């Protein structure tokens, strides 16, 4: 009897506590949704505005009386114009060439460098690893003037190959640093096991390190891709000939004539230019997250 009475006495209080916990959880959930939605609006408003503008007619754009966020008569004429413009396609081609070459060169150099710096002990390897990172801290806005001299001296001004030469100064240090971190997280016993199994250093890199560090390699690839696709300062400084321009500066330099802005085409071009990074992110993110959640080696 006494026990039952005690239980009756305690239960409501217990329920009350559980209820308040539940309420707190709900509040936290609502707050996080609210802040996420707020952040999403802030970040997505510009691309949305670009999209809206890119499918408006020039007349609609010029009409100050209309709500700028609403399209009345959507048109694809700006997209048709820009995709039918051989100059724009040249920009696109230039961007692709530069990015593919830079990403490839960057990943080859930084994976090899990170492997050596994280696993082979040699004189000065620690200092070198720190030095690699420090070079990344120098901003490109400081570097473009001396680099202009160098690129000019090599006769690579006004050539995409000048860009291919200088972009890795931005991408290699950071990617090497990311890869050093990933390689360092691979247990040393793994390479020792491979050594005993009969692997040479290159085999160890190809068969153990690269597959195991794939999430890191993808993260570094995304970074290198973004940097070289979106680079603005270096091409602005080094390229003045339209046939060598990448998308980023091509759009603004060729679609602005004096004080006439071809807004529709600028927006359409910018959206098309933004498409490849989005595709790459969406495609690689799955691998990236899958890799992050993969099982560890210990049990």
């Amino acid at each position: 009897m006494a026990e039952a009475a005690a239980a009756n006495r305690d239960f409501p209080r217990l329920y009350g506590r559980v209820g308040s916990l539940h309420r707190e959880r709900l509040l936290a959930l609502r707050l996080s949704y609210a802040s996420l939605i707020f952040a999403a609006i802030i970040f997505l408003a510009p691309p949305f505005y670009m999209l809206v503008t890119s499918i408006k007619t020039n007349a609609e754009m010029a009409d100050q009386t209309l709500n700028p966020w609403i399209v009345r008569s959507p048109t694809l004429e700006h997209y048709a114009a820009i995709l039918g413009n051989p100059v724009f396609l040249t920009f696109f081609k230039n961007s692709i060439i530069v990015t593919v070459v830079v990403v490839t060169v960057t990943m080859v150099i930084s994976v090899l460098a990170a492997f050596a710096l994280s696993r082979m002990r040699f004189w000065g390897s620690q200092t070198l690893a720190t030095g690699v990172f420090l070079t990344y801290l120098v901003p490109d806005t400081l570097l473009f003037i001396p680099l202009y001299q160098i690129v000019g001296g090599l006769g690579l001004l006004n050539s995409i190959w000048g860009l291919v030469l200088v972009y890795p100064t931005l991408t290699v240090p950071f990617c090497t640093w990311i890869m050093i971190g990933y390689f360092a997280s691979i247990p040393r016993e793994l390479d020792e096991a491979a050594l005993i199994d009969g692997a040479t250093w290159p085999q160890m890199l190809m068969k153990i390190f690269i597959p195991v560090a794939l999430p890191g390699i993808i993260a570094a690839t995304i970074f290198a891709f973004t940097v070289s696709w979106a680079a603005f300062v270096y091409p602005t400084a080094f390229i003045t000939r339209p046939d060598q321009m990448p998308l980023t500066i091509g759009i603004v330099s060729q679609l602005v004539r004096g004080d006439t802005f071809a807004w529709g085409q600028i927006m359409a071009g910018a959206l098309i230019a933004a498409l490849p990074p989005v595709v790459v992110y969406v495609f690689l993110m799955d691998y990236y997250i899958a890799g992050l959640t993969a099982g560890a080696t210990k049990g």
Partner: protein
Amino acid sequence: MAQVSLRGVVKEYEGGVQAVKGIDLEIADHEFVVLVGPSGCGKSTTLRMIAGLEEITRGEIAIGGEVVNDIPPRDRDIAMVFQNYALYPHMSVFDNISFGLKLRGFPRDEIRRRVDKAARILGIGELLDRKPKALSGGQRQRVAMGRAIVRDPKVFLFDEPLSNLDAKLRVQMRTEIKQVHQTVKTTTIYVTHDQVEAMTLADRVVVMNHGVIEQVGPPNELYRNPATIFVAGFIGSPAMNMIPARLERAGGGGLLVRLDDELALPVPPERTERYAPHANRNLLFGIRPEHLTEATRIDKRNLAPITVTLDVIEPMGMETLVHFHINGTSVCGRVDPAAGAEAGAPMALAAHMDHMHLIDKDSGKVL
């Protein structure tokens, strides 16, 4: 299959710190040798030098009669099992086990045959398509052993392979390792800090401390006749009792071990000659808990009665541990659960003097 020789092996790190201070050890073909000692005693470093993962500062290591000091690990024909298994996380069990064979260019059907054989020995046939992350700790350990067995190397090296497993699985895997060794008979060097593992697995145990070998011998030999105070204290659980004592001459040419003013235990006559030179010295009297027991339990010869007041009793089921003090030193004895031991009560025990040890405190040697 091969013997392993270590001659004057020294490992010195930068700054002159010596992890291994000159080790001589001969390991016979087919032998199972366990290196045991506390952490930092140099046992793992020694194993890694044999594997070729650490350079040898001085001395010589030979495998199968061939000096391997300058030979890289892959050409030493050894296989190693690591504490954290070191399985390749992106490969299936089959690929993990066959990795070494593939690198060495074995034909496909030979690889299949060897992996199947190793999987059969270890009972992991159904796991071959799984990734390491889908395996339990014990299964991972078996795969790591499979990777070693499949190569049919001259020597197996085990570096604390059971430390990551829970207690029950550890006992089970211990038996399996012993069975595997009895099947494949490959010379095995096994490193552990667990003296029970060392005792149960080894043909010979090598006890290491501070970078030197304290004693080498079969498990029971080390247990019965430890050579140093370190081995006496390290091997056996609960540890050997060591009580400060004075060796005195008794009437009739005999010797007495005096523990305090009232308590003096007679040394067995057959040991008188051995201990006589140390008469009238302050020594440590060493005796294992199972040799401090109720008088009725062991044979009557060379029994020295001691009556003590028990501080604590610990029932273990098959026996009961009793703790008491002799002259300020905490001492442990082992009695039958039915012997009526009670905390706070006096109890009549007997020291089995045939199993006594006398230890020189200064040199650390067992006399």
